[in-house]
Structures are given as structure tokens and as C-alpha cells.
């Protein structure tokens, strides 16, 4: 069960990987998330989420091009696995289930 666990922040990172497609590497993911969350993120937080998810099998990765700005170091482009998409869908379905119920009952606390 441990492997299927997907944390909240991890879910967000995963979603940005899917959105960014072939641009999905560390800095770009960071920018994307900072833009949407309106919050500063560290390289470390993104990286550790990426590595964790890769180990759990949500992501695959390969080296991309190197740029001068990166001091000649290559990027690592991430890709979501079909398994990740399946889990994301499941999570979405669960949430939607909740929300549709909440919609009928109305939110008690706001």
C-alpha cells in the first residue's frame, strides 16, 4: 500500500509534470507551481518529491539537453507513467464523489 500513497504536494508536482509535457524538468516544474500556488518553493522540495515519486513508480525520467545557463549541466525530463495517471484519476473520482455529495448537502463550515 505504501507505494500507492501519493502526498498532496506530490500530487501537485505530478500534475505539473503532466501539464508541462516535454518541458517537465526541475526548474520549469518549480516555476509552474510557484505561478499557480503563488508561493516560493525551493529546488529541494521539488526534487525530493520527484525522487520519491520516481521510486514509487509514478514517474520515469531521462536526461535532456544542457544549456549554458545551467553551467553545461543536463536537464532531467520527467514523464508520468500510465500508473500515475490511473492513480490520479482514482483520486479525482474519489474527490468528485465527495464534492458532489457536499454540493447536495451544502458546506457547513466556511
Amino acid at each position: 500500500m505504501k507505494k500507492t500513497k501519493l502526498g498532496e504536494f506530490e500530487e501537485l508536482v505530478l500534475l505539473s509534470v503532466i501539464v508541462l509535457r516535454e518541458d517537465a524538468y526541475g526548474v520549469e516544474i518549480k516555476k509552474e507551481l510557484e505561478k499557480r500556488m503563488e508561493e516560493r518553493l525551493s529546488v529541494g522540495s521539488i526534487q525530493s518529491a520527484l525522487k520519491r515519486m520516481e521510486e514509487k513508480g509514478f514517474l520515469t525520467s531521462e536526461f535532456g539537453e544542457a544549456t549554458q545557463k545551467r553551467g553545461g549541466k543536463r536537464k532531467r525530463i520527467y514523464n508520468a507513467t500510465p500508473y500515475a495517471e490511473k492513480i490520479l484519476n482514482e483520486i479525482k473520482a474519489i474527490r468528485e464523489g465527495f464534492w458532489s455529495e457536499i454540493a447536495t448537502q451544502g458546506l457547513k463550515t466556511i
Partner: protein
Amino acid sequence: MKEIAPPKWARRLLRIFIHGEYLEEIEGDLEEVFYDDLETLSKKGARKRYTLGVLKLFRLSLLKNLKWIYKIGLIISIMRTIRLAFRNLLKFKTHSAINLIGLSLGLAVGALILLYVIDELSFDNFHKKGDRIYKVVTGSEGGMETNAWPVGYKLRTEFPEVESVLYAKNFPSNIKLNHKDKRVDQSIYYASQEFFDLFSFDLVSSNEKEALTAPFTVVITESLQDVYFEGDALGKTLTLADSIDFEITGVIENFPENSHIQFDILVSFPTIEKLQWWSYTEGWGNFNVRNYLLLKEGTDPDVLQSKVKDLYNENNGEWMEEMGVSFSVELIPLKEVYLNETYYNGFGPKGSGKRVKTVTWIAAFLLLLACINYVNLSTARSAYRAKEVGMKKVAGSSRKAIISQFMTESFLLTLISFVVGLVLMSVALPFFNDLMGKKYDIASFGAMEFVTAVLLLLMAVTIGSGFYPAWIISSLNPLNALSGKLNKSYQGLSLRKILITFQFFISSGLVIATLLVINQINYMRTKDLGFEKEQVLIINASDAPRGSRRDVLKSQLQSISGVYNVSHTNALPGRPGWLGQWAYPEKEGGEQVDTEYMAIDENFVDVLELQLIAGRNFDLERPSELEAGLIINETCVEEMGWQSPEDAIGREIVSPSQRPAGTVIGVVKDYHGLGLQDIIWPQAMDYRSYSYGRYFAIRYDTKQTYELTKGIENAWDDVYGDYELEYFFLDEDFDRQYREENQLARVLTIFAIIILIVSSIGLFGLISFVALSRTKEVGIRKTMGASIGQIIFILSKEFMILVLLGNLFVIPLIWYYGNQWLNDFAFHTTINPAIFVIAIFVTALIAFITVSIQTYKTAKMNPVSALRYE
């Protein structure tokens, strides 16, 4: 923009800590962010943010030795276990000390013996073709390391599975190297060129193809080159025996210490054709060549062995039958040559498989006894630690954890003991070297094999001592343990009894064995040998030229004050006879008698104080007897089939080899020409070969040995000034034959003492526990009026019975093996039952003293405090 870069130290930090696989990507990301930041922030701000970014990277999933971090918990728990183990060791100081003494003695001795055994077993294992090399020897009564001449030739020509055959033969032994006026003993052998096919000794200079091929060429060792030649000796000339020049065609690397082949000079085999009798195909009865074989790959040595075994029978069967002897060809694998017991090694050092086995057993026993101490003390103590174990179990500790706690304790103690043992080893090393005839130093402890073996030993000792107690203690039921319902010595009691019995079984066994060996040595030293070995000084004149100068020397020696008589002879008790050869005179009917044949002069009988029991000695007044007379010993009379010594006088002895042949003029009482290991052989002595003499035996009757040797030196310098004088005392030289036994006695004595100490301190520790647990009983007994003596008796009884039992069990065993050992000596003592009594008395006394010290303490206690105990 190029000049502005992220702070270096942060980057370095990154490289140190971040997992290598992620480094490139993360470093790139950080730099990209840094340069992006530069567009919006100041240089300082960007750098600050970069540093912050680096610091924020310290997450478990990104760090290098991630696994190690997870192990911190484990390390902490191990540290805690070790700390606990330490506390427990310190809590029971006496017992820890007892175990420490036992184990460190055991480990020191065990490790030293490991060093020795590894060294002995490593002999000759460096030859590349070693597993295909065999030494050819002659199986016969006693066994000979040399073969008849045609054996090597047959092997070389008639057996296709043999790749090559090496011939090696002693160079006449009385030749010394003569170079720059120095005359130094060298070991010199003839060797055929196959030497380099077989053995992996490298030539430092010259090529292998030419070395040892031409006559009058030699190969010398590097060390010889260093001593006698400056720089390269190749092509230089070496003069042997004052007269023969040899060309040096090769210099060979020095031999490793663990080679059974050691020499200074190899003379090419073709040289033998020019110097002495030789033959490849003749001489089936002439055993003086040494052979080594190299088998072709894939040859089954057993098959070859069975094929070659009967070579002597097939080729020389009739002669052998006539002589009543049997010979067979035997192959010994190279690696077994050194430790082989039967066949002498004329090529270098000789080990002893028996000695290796003996010391290994003793070391194993010693370690075992030290482990037994540990087991006994720990199980005895188990009741005192039951509460601790019970608590732990209640708190949820698994049995595995408790076992590992106890194993840690024993490991820690073993380790500390080993450190102490190392100190003991270093201190004992010179003594050990002396005992074993080795040259180890501290550096020998660093050898890979030794370190590995010692680590295995430590593991074995840890498990051997720790596992059983850990198992027992961890099996306690926590309920019983906590409620204190345990019988104080409830567990392992019968096992403990067995172990104590075993300890004293071993200790007394060793004590008895030591006494037995010492007894036999005393017997050999003091037995009447039939001649008088005291007060005889021998000059070895083997190298000095023969002829009339010998007679001059003899008369000069005789005139020295304090000299009673001088004999010039070629044989001495304790030294082999005439060139070490046997003669086979025929008795009536043609059967041959193996006889030791010696050439003596008219003073021999007088100097050695032999007893003539019939006939008379050689007399210079009777030249015909000097020419054809023989003096024989009693055994010879018997073997020749004559009635009595008187009957033998005037009889003729005929011998195919002309020696010894003549008329018997005298019979001497049997005397021991060899050590008491050997029987007394028939002996025949004649006078006519007297000029072959090698020794001057000088009987003296003065206490002023300094004056005496001074006089002898002067006489020698007068006659043979250019030769070195070599002299020794007959008694010392003769007793050298008992070196092996003396060494055994020393080894046994030392180990018997150590083992006795280890067993006794173990008993001491145990008894202190038992006495403690019976404190209340003692208190009650005392109030009821028991005397201290009675209490000591009650407390000691049980243990004394065990000690005696151990003694009783070992007696039949020693009786059996002791007699076997003694039977190897042709002349030996019988096992004196007194040594059993002595051994029982000694071990029982030591045990009793040990036990009494403790029990006395308990018995003397004030009964009031004894009753309050607990």
C-alpha cells in the same frame, strides 16, 4: 555574466552530500534558478538564495548515504548493548577477570600456534606446477629418501605420463667453498637441468636453458653472490675442494623460508661423470640419488604409483630375495614432503606432522577449557541475572535480542582478552621461537592468512563460550525469573559437572603425559649405554687432509697434560658409521647379516671404555691381527649364529664387499651406538681402514677443560693451522639425538602448567558462586555446631569428586597411548604407576587449595550475617 557564479563553498557542500546520481540535474537546476534570479535580484541576493536552496536540499531522499542514516537507530542500540555488556563485565569483576585470564592465555597460545601451523602447512606451496610434482622415495624398512640409480632412468624413459625427472645428489660432503682464503661450509648438490622445469625458482641472471647443462658449471644463490662476489657473479669462477674450477652460469633467487629445498650451490649433473661413479642404468643396489618427478597434466598419480611400485622387484628381484630385503618405489606429493614423518629430507629443513598435530590439539584443548570456564561461570551466574532477563522479557524484548545481548558480552570479553593476548604473544614470541625453532617476529602477525585465521578463531571462541549460556539464560520463563522462584543453580548443573570433569580430565592427562615423557628422557639420559660418554672431547677432522699428519696430530694430542688417551676413528656413537653405509657379511649358509661397519684404531675400545668380554683388542705388536682382525659386538655374535663370545673368537667373517672380512679377535659387550630410539645393530670393527678416520676422540681426566682445549688448539694449529678446528663434547653430541623428545617435554610442561592454571581459576570462580549460594546453609550448620573443617569438607566434596573422576577417566587413555608412544623407542621405560599417583595428587592438591580458599572464607563468616544473607 560569466564572472558571476554561485558561491563555491555551497557548491562543494552540494557535491559532498547529494547522491551522485542526482547531482548533475540538481546542480543544473540550482544554477538555472540562480541565473534567473540574477535578472530580478542583486548579485548578493541571488547568491544568498542559492545558498539557501542548497541548504534546503538536505532531505533524506536526496542525500548520499541514505541507508546509513536509517541505521543510526541500529547503531544506537548496538552502542547501548555494548555499554550494558561493559557494565555487566564490571559488575562481576572476579568472574570477568577469571574469564579474561583464561581467554587471553588461550587466545595467545592459540594464535601463536596458528602462526606456527599456518607456516608449517605453507611449505612448498609456491611452485606453479606444485600439484604435479612428486618426490620419488624408496619404501623399505625405515624408508629411504634416495633411490637406486636406474629408477629415475626407468621413470624417464618407460612411463609416458612422466614429463620430466630431476636428479639431485649430495656433492661429496667434506668439500667447503674456498674463496679468498675463507673456508665456509656450504650446502652443495648436484642437480640436473630439469630443476628449472619443475620448481618455480627464478634465475636472477642467465637463462634457464643453459644453466646446469655443461660439466663444471654451477648455479649459486643470490646471498652467496652477495657474500663472495661484488656484483654480478655470472661467468666468474668458483673453486671447490681447493682444486676444481667451476664456471658460474646462473644466479638463483634466494629461497623463501618455507621451502624444503635450501642450498647454496647447485653443480651441473654432467659434472658427476667426470668426478665419481655414476650410471643411469646400472646399480639397483646403489641408493644415492634423489629424484623428483613432474607428471603430465591430467595424470592420475595413484595409477602411476601402482605401476611403478614394483620396479625394484621387476628388475632386481633375485638379489633382493637373496639379501632378504624389500624395496618399493613410492611417490610423495611435493606439498607433503616437508611434513612427512618417514622420509628424511636431505635437501633442507624437515618438519614434523606429528608435532603440528600435537600442538594443534593442545591449543584446541586450552581454548576449549577457557570457553568451559566462561560457560560454567555464566550459567552459574544465570540465576543472578534472571531478574534482568525477566524484566526485559516483560518489557517486550525478544529472545533474539537477549541472546544478542549476551553474545555481545562474550564477544566483548573475547576482544579484550585478545588485546591482552596480543601483548602476551609479543612478550612470549622469543621464547616461542626458541621452543619451535622458528624465526617469527611481530611483523609475522600481519600476514593475511594469519589475520583471517585469527578472526575466525575469535568468532569461534565467541560462539563457543557465549552461545550456550545465552541460549540457556534467554530461555528463562519471565514469570519464574521475576518471582525469584528459580533454584539458584537450577540449570546446567549436570552439564557443569561434566565440564569440570572434562577440564580435569584434560589437565591431568597433560600432566601425566608430561611426566611420562620426562621419565623416558631421564631413562635415556641415565641408562648405561655400554660406553662412557662423559669426559670425551671430539675433534671433527673430516676436512683435514689424511696421511701421516694425522699420526703427528694424534701423538701431539696424547702428550697434552690431562689427556688420558686418544683414538682416531671414522665412527662415533651418535654419528652414522663408515660413510653411513651398511655391510652385509654372510653367515654360514650364505644368509646376510645387516651389520654396521666401522674403522677404528687400537685406542677406540679404551677411550670409549667399551668392555671386551672375549678375545683381545687390536695390538700394534701383532701386525697380522691389525691387517685381518675384527672386533664384533655381542649382537653380531648372536646374529651370526655362534654359541658364545668365546666361540666367536677365531671365526672367519666373509663379506661380498670385502668389508668387513677377517678373523674375529675380540668381542665387546653391546653398547648403544645410536640413541635409545634404535635397536643395537650387529657391529664389526676393523683396523686396516683406520686411515679413513674422521674424528679424534680424546678421553681426558682433568677438570681444567680450559687448559685442555687450549692445548688441543695449539696441537691442531701446529699440524693443521690452515684448517678450522671443530670440536665438541661427546655427551652433548650424543644427547642431541633426544632433541625431539626434549622439545616435546618442554612443550608439554609449559602447556600442562597453563592448562592447569586455566582449569583451576575456572574452578575457583565456580566455587565462589556455589559457596555464596550456600551461605545460609553454612550459617545454619555453624549455629548447629559444625566446625570450619567440616564445612570446608561439605562444600568441597562435590568438586573434589569431579576432579578425581577426571583423573580416573584419563588414566586408561594415557596408559594406552603412552605405551604406543613408548613403543617407538627400542629401549624404553615402562609406565610407572607412580606418575598417575603424582598427577592425581598434584591436580587434586591444586583443586583442593583453590576450593578451600573460597570455602574457608564462607565457612569463617559470622553465622549471624550468613543467616541474614538474602
